[in-house]
């Protein structure tokens, strides 16, 4: 090979490297821009009362703006509503999702399992607004009203496929020797699953649950059809309830409250960021 050819190839190599770096930087720009914008605009609003007080009325907000004072009140009603609905959704979605994922991992060739697996994919790809409208028909109409329960059903349906998949994937990459060792001691399949396989897969499953939570915590559309919203702090599960993403939408529609959008957005963003970092950290820790 001539020297020239080698030079050419090295040049190609360098060109490739630079273009990869360039595109990586380009994709990072919008991410950083979003983060920066929300931080800059929302930072001022974060105060203790922002997290402990419910949304102000439009009138109060208007008065404050006229007086040049910061808008009073906060998003406590939304935070509490989000937590209540997430809590109920997690309590149902986590055990059923794990069981379903375990079933899929153990019976990959079974016809029924294949159908369920396909449906899981379908559910994962279903637009959230459709899940909202279905939940409206299934839950809101028979219960004759919007409620936290209806909202949590919608969130639960959205979390299920994510939990099922992460459980299934994690179980499938466990070494077969683990399961065989359990069965070789005389355990039945259910016990080996509960005592050996699921504990060994805990890291992956937990990460999946955290990601599922961070995925649905910002969902707005399904909650519009189900939880509706509520301007005061409420703990009842059979009444309309607020949620942080719903508040953002409400703030956007009310000229007097628009300033509050940024504080609420920042809260949501930081929450999701924390969950993601936590899940990364746990995944690393459990893989050691």
């Amino acid at each position: 090979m001539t020297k020239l050819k080698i030079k050419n190839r090295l040049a190609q190599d360098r060109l490739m490297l630079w273009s990869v770096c360039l595109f990586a930087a380009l994709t990072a720009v919008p991410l950083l821009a979003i983060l920066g914008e929300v931080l800059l605009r929302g930072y001022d609003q974060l105060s203790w009362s922002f997290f402990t007080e419910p949304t102000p009325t439009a009138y109060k907000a208007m008065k404050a703006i006229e007086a040049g004072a910061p808008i009073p009140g906060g998003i406590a009603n939304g935070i509490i509503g989000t937590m209540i609905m997430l809590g109920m959704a997690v309590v149902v979605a986590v055990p059923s999702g794990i069981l379903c994922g375990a079933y899929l991992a153990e019976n990959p060739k079974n016809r029924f399992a294949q159908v369920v697996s396909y449906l899981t994919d379908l559910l994962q790809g279903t637009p959230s607004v459709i899940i909202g409208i279905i939940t409206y028909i299934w839950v809101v109409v028979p219960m004759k009203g919007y409620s936290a329960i209806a909202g949590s059903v919608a969130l639960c349906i959205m979390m299920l496929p994510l939990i099922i998949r992460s459980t299934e994937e994690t179980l499938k990459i466990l070494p077969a020797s683990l399961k065989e060792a359990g069965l070789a001691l005389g355990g039945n399949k259910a016990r080996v699953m509960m005592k050996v396989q699921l504990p060994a897969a805990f890291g992956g499953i937990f990460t999946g649950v955290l990601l599922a939570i961070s995925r649905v915590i910002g969902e707005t559309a399904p909650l519009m059809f189900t939880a509706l919203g509520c301007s005061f702090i409420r703990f009842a599960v059979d009444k309309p309830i607020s949620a942080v993403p719903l508040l953002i939408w409400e703030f956007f529609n009310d000229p007097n409250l628009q300033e509050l959008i940024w504080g609420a957005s920042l809260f949501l963003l930081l929450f999701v960021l924390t969950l993601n970092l936590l899940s990364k950290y746990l995944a690393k820790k459990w893989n050691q």
Partner: protein
Amino acid sequence: MESVTPILEFKKTCVSYTKQTMAVKYVSAAIERNTITAIMGPSGCGKSTLLRAVNLMHNLYPNIRVDGEILLNGENILAMEPIDVRRRVGMVFQRPAPFPTMSIYDNVLSGFVLNGIKLSKVEKDATVERCLRSVALWDEVKDVLNKKGTFLSGGQQQRLCIARALAMKPDVLLMDEPTSALDPIATKHIEELLLELQKEVTILIVTHNMGQAKRISSKSMFMYLGELVEYGDTETVFSKPSDERTKAYLTGKMG
């Protein structure tokens, strides 16, 4: 003439992974109680496959067929419940595989947990100590029983796995190259242990190490391409093998 039923007896046992080929072909042999039987043969000749047939491991994979009979105390295990069989036939794998989420203590007791057997604290403590003593691990780990089993060295892990199998008081212990991942000292420990253990349990051990077979086994099997071509007293098999293939393997001309 004695007519004691052998503890384990293969009768024309065949195993096939695919429809076309058999990995184990018509193996017939009777295993005597409280002996160590070594299974030797070149790689891929079906040793692991034969061993795994005994605790019905092949049942986990629907494509694998096992034919013929395998008698445990005169009873055909192929017609028994796998859970029943596996409780009486323990297995130790090539790679030490303590349960990673369990402590050393819980690893020893895992057989009971997996069988849904409840023990009192006193029984648990006694079982753990007895089993760890019988694998000569007690003195090394008695102060760290709550640590994860995976913190131990490879040899210690393997002994822990043997202890875990022994806790269920099996009649037969299957071992698939249990020392191939271990250094010579750990290997020696385990060999001494096996010689001791044969008083309580019948051991079937796959080994690539002819020295090991000579040192510990009283009977030896030699397999070739899925067939059992030689089975007899270890001394005879090594000094006067009756089959040409065994001779070739033992003299290093094959495998």
